[in-house]
């Protein structure tokens, strides 16, 4: 540990860190403003990791730790898939796979007024946006984009929803498109919604397309790009 502290901070970027590792030393980088993301904490001059994962750096000054986990920690402006659990007078209670239930105010819809409150039965799947995620409070969700338009948000009809780790999600949302999605998209037509809370919804005309797409995505987590394409080819051959 001693020699790690003295080493230059750049050496930790893109390497695996575990909780307690001191990844940055502020005393050696004066007159510089840095932004800390998830998994990092500051103790005086030392920035240490609080979770295991890969330390990432994005120019000019952002640091965060990237890891793959099953739980979701709400973050403002994330787009997520939530399940309606209960409806109260002011809020819908939404399960977002996080530590606390999300609150979706009944007025947080495009043109939402007291008169046209939507009715959602328990178990409805919604595509949502996180508006507030304060510590110790239930996260607040919304079915509109920042300008109050419905955009793509709202209930998702039919299809199939499955759960994945946050690591796989990041791959699915990365650009250029993830190889598995690209390979599937060339042969099949389907609709997909990826929530940052580890939920993916897939819809297609026939059930077997949905099953193939869902399984291909779930299997792709530990495969390289080339392996993903081979796997998709293999799966598609089986159904044709």
């Amino acid at each position, binding site marked *: 540990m001693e020699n790690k502290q003295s080493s230059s901070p750049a050496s930790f970027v893109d390497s695996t860190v575990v909780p307690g590792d001191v990844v940055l030393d502020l005393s050696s980088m004066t007159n510089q403003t840095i932004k800390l993301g998830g998994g990092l904490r500051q103790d005086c001059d030392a920035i240490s990791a609080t979770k295991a994962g890969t330390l990432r750096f994005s120019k000019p000054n952002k640091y965060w730790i990237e890891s793959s986990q099953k739980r979701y920690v709400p973050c403002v402006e994330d787009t997520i898939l939530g399940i309606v659990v209960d409806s109260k007078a002011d809020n819908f*209670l939404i399960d977002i796979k996080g530590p606390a239930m999300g609150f979706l105010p009944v007025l947080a819809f495009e043109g939402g007024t007291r008169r046209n409150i939507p009715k959602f039965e328990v178990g*409805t799947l919604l595509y949502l946006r996180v508006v507030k995620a304060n510590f110790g409070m239930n996260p607040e969700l919304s079915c509109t984009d920042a300008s109050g338009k419905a955009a793509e948000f709202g209930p998702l009809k039919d299809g199939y*929803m499955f759960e994945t780790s946050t690591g796989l999600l990041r791959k699915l949302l990365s650009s250029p498109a993830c190889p598995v999605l690209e390979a599937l998209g060339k042969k099949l037509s389907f609709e997909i919604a990826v929530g940052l809370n580890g939920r993916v*919804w897939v819809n297609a005309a026939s059930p077997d397309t949905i*099953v193939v797409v869902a399984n291909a995505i779930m299997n792709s987590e530990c495969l390289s790009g080339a392996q993903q394409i081979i796997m998709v080819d293999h799966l598609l051959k089986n159904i044709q």
Partner: protein
Amino acid sequence: MEGRLANSWRLTVNDKNFIKTALLSEIRIDGRKPFEYRKISIKFGREDGSSEVQLGQTRVMGMVTAQLVQPYRDRPKEGILSIFTEFSPMADPSFEPGRPGELAVELGRIIDRGLRESRAVDTESLCILASKFVWAIRIDLHILDNGGNLVDAANIAALAALLTFRRPECSLGGEDGQEVIVHPPEIREPLPLTVHHLPIAISFGFFSNESILVIDPTHNEEAVMGGRMTTTVNANGDICAIQKSGGEGVPQRVIMQCLQLATSKAASITKQIKDAVEVVNTERALRKVKRHPTSTGVDVREKQN
């Protein structure tokens, strides 16, 4: 109230409908056919009598231990076989720590019935001194991950653990021949249990009114299906136990079909368990043979240092 809601696992309306509609065209969400079983992998721990079974996403750990106890009064010459289940909240958020839930009790009972009523484990050979000392075999089943069909996975884990378990050898001694001497494993080779046959539990799920039948239901399918039936059969086709739960009524024809399917599946699972056990037994034997050369090897290296 809210905390409880957050803990209970739930399925979306979309998934429920999708599972049902896909099953109508004989498609299951994990790409299986209705009568296809998931892949089973059986692993063993370093200790004798420990096993870990993975059935798709489901993971169960089995652990067998033995203890010398006084037998029950009404059965002075029989050993005791008992099963304990442990449902960890890590496996599924809906499992509550502490008190065993309804599912935990049912699972324990089904496996217990399969093993005991069919007399799969020879309890009479566990007797050392009638009405004084018998071996009490305890099977602990820990659910590590719930991916559906816990009964079948736990049953395989219990069987695999029983087959690899070794109990210390005992003999009678002392002046009156009433004293029990337990020989440590270094002195006398521990003995395996006598297992006559392997009762394999096979579960089926029934879906409402379309008379759809699936084998080995997953977690999601369990949430949708109306009824389930677990049949415990062995490779010879003997029925050891049947458990039918859930509200769905099932005609006799379907039950017969289930039993036929179960028998053929039981044969292949039995083979898989036996193969896995044989591999671990040969390894065990080889470990014993190699003991001497490795110990001398270590000595030499230490001298060099």
